[in-house]
């Protein structure tokens, strides 16, 4: 299918003169639309649904890319070019994708062609390439968000979409409602919150991690960097921290109604005085010289501090 240029939509939307813009959508002339109606066979329609469009934007260092997509799979990967590539695959004719550049910022947004589309139908998938130092701001209610090897700051907000980051750095803030969060080989600073999402943080080299989910499990398996701060908290579920013999951390683990299981040989806390409460199951102590600070807290969940294999 042929993609018509931006001017086809100029009567419906006026772009600002200082921004380079593109409306990405699967377009047809009225005549072609009518033809499609009378041509029998679903194959053509199926082929049309598979259509996607591609757009490139030249950018400088540290570009900002924003994406607002109600539903769909979003994949972002870093590459070595000073360019942002957006490949969008709208799920239907009722969906349009706008992509526009203003200075060093690229804004991408999915929206309905008409107001009558069902929330489920407002869907588009994205495959995006960005420079390594790009900053990302992604809103994707449903579907999935996958980001790989992007070193800039990142803000991801979803409702049900799972968020999967790998080899990321910078300041990462992730908020989901019930989407899961996975972060592999991430560095920098991580703040993640959810209501019922599970978190899996593996092979991290982050100096600050703050993770809070209400009804979810949290797994942390990574290095505790000197002077690092690691706060993991839930209401229910399992918090599992895996440490290696060379780690050095000051530990505070409290579960109000649940259990704390510990395999670390702790000495009395070196840096901080803790107070045991008669109400809670608490564990305080230092592992090696206590250079990092680890705070684990659960309402009625289980906390496991286990040796890393």
């Amino acid at each position, binding site marked *: 299918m042929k993609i018509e240029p931006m001017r086809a939509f100029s009567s419906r939307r006026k772009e600002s003169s200082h921004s380079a813009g593109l409306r990405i959508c699967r377009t047809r002339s009225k005549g072609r639309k009518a033809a499609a109606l009378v041509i029998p066979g679903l194959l053509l329609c199926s082929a049309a649904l598979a259509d996607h469009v591609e757009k490139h934007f030249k950018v400088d260092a540290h570009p900002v890319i924003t994406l607002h997509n109600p539903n769909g799979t979003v994949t972002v990967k870093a590459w070595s070019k000073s360019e942002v590539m957006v490949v969008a695959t709208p799920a239907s004719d009722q969906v349009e994708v706008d992509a526009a550049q203003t200075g060093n910022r690229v804004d991408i947004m999915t929206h309905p062609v008409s107001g009558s589309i069902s*929330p*489920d139908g407002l869907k588009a998938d994205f495959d995006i390439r960005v420079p390594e130092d790009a900053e990302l701001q992604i809103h994707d209610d*449903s579907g999935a968000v996958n980001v790989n090897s992007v070193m800039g700051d990142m803000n991801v907000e979803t409702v049900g979409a799972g968020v999967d980051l790998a080899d990321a750095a910078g300041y990462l803030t992730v908020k989901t*409602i019930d989407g899961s969060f996975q972060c592999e080989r991430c560095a920098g600073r991580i703040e993640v919150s959810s*209501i019922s999402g599970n978190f899996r943080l593996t092979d991290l080299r982050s100096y600050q991690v703050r993770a809070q989910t*209400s009804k979810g499990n949290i797994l942390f398996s990574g290095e505790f960097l000197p002077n690092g701060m690691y706060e993991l908290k839930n209401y229910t579920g399992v918090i599992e921290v895996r440490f290696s013999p060379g780690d050095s951390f000051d530990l505070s683990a409290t579960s109000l109604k649940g259990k704390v299981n510990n395999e670390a040989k702790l000495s009395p806390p070196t840096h901080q005085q803790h107070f045991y*409460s008669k*109400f809670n199951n608490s564990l305080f102590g230092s592992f090696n010289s206590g250079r990092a600070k680890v705070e684990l807290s659960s309402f009625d969940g289980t906390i496991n501090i286990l040796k890393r294999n």
Partner: protein
Amino acid sequence: MSTMECNEFMEQLGPWMEGERHGSARAHVQSCPECRSFVTDLEAIQAAAPTLSIADPEPPARVWAVLRNQLVDEGVIREQSGIDWQRDRPRFAGLFTRVPRPALAGAYLTLLVLLGFGLTAPVMQQTQPAPTFALAAELDHAEQTTVSSFDSSKSPVSADLHENLEIVDHYIALCEKSVREEPGNDVAREYLYQAYQQKADLLSMITERGDSNQ
């Protein structure tokens, strides 16, 4: 006289709080106890907000941060506006007379939590009083009056949000029970206030989405 429904009145809540009180809206408030109570709550908060910095204890900085972020998100203020939120708190209260819905609704919900922290959290550190759950009642009320008005969307996302609201309500009930049984348990209180915060955030999201779907 009034044919106005609750959701129509909620549409006019912004102008109402700015003093524009037309006949049909006025009639609705008189005839609808829920909206009357909601408006009374808002007016009480509006009246109390300017004196917060003088009469009330210092709320945690994170509460201001949450409120600021929410207002930035909703476009009420800009991040680079140069406002010092600690210094300008009294002036900040005046925002609520000018902001549109859903910003007003979101700010209202957050302010409930703010008041919860401001009025209750510092006290507990000193005297450990028997807990009261006025904040929970306010949030429940906000849930009934606000969420039900925007409950038309049946999307999976809306269902997700409502399902998670039930989860948070469940934790609030657990935490309230725990605080009742152990009034001196600060950790339980902290969990309780965080659950309130989550509920306020969720109600704001549901309100915004309901609004955008209409």
